[in-house]
C-alpha cells in the first residue's frame, strides 16, 4: 500500500508569488518587492544556468564529461534560494546545485572539472562560501548543521543552508541533522528540492506525508514553496535565512519542483515515468513564467531577451572551449593534498611510483 502524494496538482498550502502564466499574486506571509532590474537579473540567471546545464549535457554526450547531473526544471528553486543568500551565509550543495554555484560566483568550469574527472571539485569553498558537491546522499546536511553550530559559537550573524532532494529525506544523516539542528537551535535552512523522483523512485517510496510536514515532528517550521517560482523561492528562503540569523533556529523549505531531465546522463527516465507528466510540468516552466511576467508588465523588451540569449550562447561556447582545454592532472596529483601534514606512506608511494614512471623515459 502506498499513500497518495505528489502528482501534478499543486497542493493548496504551497507558497506561490508568480503563477505559471506569469501573473503576480500575493501571499499573506511572504512579501517581496523586486525592481525591474532585479527581475531582469533573475531572468538572466535562470537562462544562463539552463544554458550551462544544456552545454554540460551535450559535452557528456560527446564523451567530454564522464557524467552530468542535469538541473533542468529546477532553475528557479536554485536561483531563488541562491540569490537569497548573503556573503556571510554558507551553502552546502548536493551534486546538482549548478544554479546555486552560479549564484555564489563559482566559475562553471570548476563544476565541469569534477564531472570530467580532473579533480573532485576545483573551487575554494571559503572564497565562495559554497562547499564542495556531496555525492553520498544526505551527508552534507550534518556538515551544514555543524557549520551552523560553529556560527553560534562565533557569535556571528550568519546562517548555513543545505540542499538535498526528496530521496535524501529517507537517509539517517538527514534525520540526524534535523534532530541536531532542533536541539541546538542551529542557524540552518534545510532546502529540500522535491523534484518528485529519486532516480526511478517516486516520492511515495520515500514518504507518506508531504515532506515539509516532517519538520514539525522535529520541532521546527516547514514550508512548501512552488519550486518553479523564482520569486517565491527567493522570498521564502530569505525569510528562513533571516530567522536563522536572528537566532530563531532552523526552517525546512520544501521546494516543490520537477526534474525535467534524467537523474544523470546515465539514466533513462522513459523506463519509469510517462511522457504526459513531463509535458504537464513543462507548462509550469520556471523561466517561461518570468518571461511572461516581464512582457506583461513591460519590464523588458525583445532587445533584452535577445541580449540574454546571446550572452547564454557565448557562455556555452566559452564553457565548451574551457572544458576541452582542461589539462589532465599530472600523476603527482595522486598523492597531493591527501594529508595536510607530512606523511611517510604518501612520500614513499609517491617516490616509488614516480621513479617507476621515470623508468619509461630512459
Amino acid at each position, binding site marked *: 500500500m502506498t499513500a497518495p502524494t505528489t502528482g501534478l496538482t499543486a497542493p493548496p498550502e504551497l507558497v506561490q508569488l508568480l503563477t505559471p502564466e506569469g501573473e503576480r499574486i500575493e501571499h499573506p506571509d511572504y512579501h517581496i518587492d523586486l525592481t525591474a532590474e532585479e527581475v531582469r537579473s533573475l531572468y538572466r540567471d535562470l537562462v544562463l544556468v539552463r544554458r550551462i546545464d544544456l552545454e554540460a549535457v551535450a559535452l557528456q554526450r560527446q564523451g567530454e564529461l564522464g557524467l552530468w547531473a542535469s538541473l533542468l526544471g529546477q532553475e528557479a528553486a536554485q536561483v531563488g534560494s541562491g540569490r537569497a543568500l548573503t556573503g556571510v551565509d554558507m551553502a552546502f550543495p548536493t551534486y546538482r546545485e549548478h544554479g546555486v554555484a552560479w549564484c555564489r560566483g563559482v566559475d562553471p568550469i570548476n563544476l565541469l572539472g569534477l564531472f570530467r574527472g580532473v579533480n573532485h571539485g576545483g573551487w*575554494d569553498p571559503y572564497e565562495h562560501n559554497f562547499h564542495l558537491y556531496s555525492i553520498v546522499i544526505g551527508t552534507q546536511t550534518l556538515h551544514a548543521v555543524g557549520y551552523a553550530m560553529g556560527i553560534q559559537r562565533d557569535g556571528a550573524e550568519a546562517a548555513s543552508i543545505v540542499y538535498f532532494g526528496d530521496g535524501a529525506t529517507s537517509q539517517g544523516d538527514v534525520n540526524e541533522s534535523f534532530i541536531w539542528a532542533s536541539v541546538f537551535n542551529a542557524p540552518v535552512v534545510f532546502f529540500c528540492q522535491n523534484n518528485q523522483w529519486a532516480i526511478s523512485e517516486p516520492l511515495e517510496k520515500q514518504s507518506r506525508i508531504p515532506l515539509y510536514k516532517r519538520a514539525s515532528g522535529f520541532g521546527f517550521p516547514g514550508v512548501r514553496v512552488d519550486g518553479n517560482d523564482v520569486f517565491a523561492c527567493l522570498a521564502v528562503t530569505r525569510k528562513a535565512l533571516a530567522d536563522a540569523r536572528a537566532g530563531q533556529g532552523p526552517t525546512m523549505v520544501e521546494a516543490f519542483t520537477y526534474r525535467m531531465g534524467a537523474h544523470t546522463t546515465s539514466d533513462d527516465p522513459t523506463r519509469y515515468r510517462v511522457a504526459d507528466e513531463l509535458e504537464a510540468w513543462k507548462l509550469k516552466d520556471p523561466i517561461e513564467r518570468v518571461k511572461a511576467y516581464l512582457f506583461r508588465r513591460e519590464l523588458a523588451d525583445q532587445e533584452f531577451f535577445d541580449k540574454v540569449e546571446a550572452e547564454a550562447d557565448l557562455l556555452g561556447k566559452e564553457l565548451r572551449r574551457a572544458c576541452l582545454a582542461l589539462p589532465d592532472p599530472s600523476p603527482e596529483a595522486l598523492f597531493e593534498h591527501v594529508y595536510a601534514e607530512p606523511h611517510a606512506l604518501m612520500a614513499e608511494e609517491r617516490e616509488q611510483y614516480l621513479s617507476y614512471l621515470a623508468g619509461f623515459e630512459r
Partner: protein
Amino acid sequence: MTVLTLAKALNEGLRAAMDADPKVLVMGEDVGKLGGVFRVTDGLQKDFGEDRVIDTPLAESGIIGTAIGLALRGYRPVCEIQFDGFVFPAADQIITQLAKMPLRSLGKLKLPVVVRIPCGGGIGAVEHHSESPEAYFTHTGGLRVVACSNPVDAYTMIQDAVRCDDPIVFFEPKRRYWDKADVELDAPGLPLDKAKVVRTGSDVTLLAYGPMVKTCLESAAAAEEDGRSVEVIDLRSLSPLDMEVIAASVNRTGRCVVVHEAPVFTGLGGELAARISEACFYRLESPVLRVGGFSTPYPPSRLEDHYLPDLDRVLDAVDRVLAY
C-alpha cells in the same frame, strides 16, 4: 611528576589542549556532566562550558558529521565514540567524508578532527563493547590512525592529535584505562607518527600497540627467564607505520611476531609481515608470525580469554619463530 591513570592522563591532555586553543571542542554522548562512561572527559564541561564540551544526541553519524561542519568553520573537535562497536553508524561520515574532504578540496579544507575510540576487550563486557576495528580505518587513505598504550604516551599523543591538521582516529585501550604511571606533564612526547622501542632485546622483535603492548612486555619479561632476549616495539602510529624503527629492529633480531587483538585475517599484522618481508628479507631467520583474534565475531565474554592473545600465546609464537 604526577601519577596518573591512562584515563586521567587523557583527561589532563585534553584539558591542556583546550587551555591552549579556544577552538578545541569535545563532543560525544555523555561527555558532559557524566564525564564520559570511562570518565576521560571528567570535569571538562564544568570548566570549559557546554559550548565547548558538548553532550550530543545519541547518534554517532551525527557526531562525526557535525564535527566535520564545525571543523569547516575553524574548530578542532575531539569526538568520543562511546565504544568501539558503536563506531559503525559513523563509518560513512569518517570514511566517505572526513577522510576524503581535504583531497577533494585540493587542500583548501583542513579537517583537524580527532575521533577517540575506546577499543579492545578484556573487561568482561557484553557484545559490541570489546572490538578492535582499527583495520577498517588504516585501510582508508586520508586518515591517520594511532593507538596509545600507557599514561605517558596518552598524555602527549592526545595533545599532538588535537594539534595535527589531519583527521585522526585515536584508539584508547579500555582495559588499560586504570593503569597508572608517572607522567611528566611538561615533557615533550615522541612525535605522533613515531614507533617506540619499549624494551630492547636481540632474539625476537614483538610488534604491538594499544592494549597488547603491556601483554608483550610481560611476555618479554617471562621469556627472559628462559634466557630469551625479546625486543618490544610499541607502534603508536598504525597509519602511517614507522617502518624505520620496525625494520631496524627486525634487521637486528631476524625474527618478528606481530600481536594484536583484532582478527589476524587481513589485520594490521598482515601488512606488517608483508612490509617486513620486503624491508628485511635477507636478515629474516623465520617467517613473521601473527598472534591475534580469531576470524569470528567477538565472542561472549566468558570465552574472551581464549580469543584474546595472552602471555602464553605470545610466548608460543616466540618459541615457534625461534625454532626456525
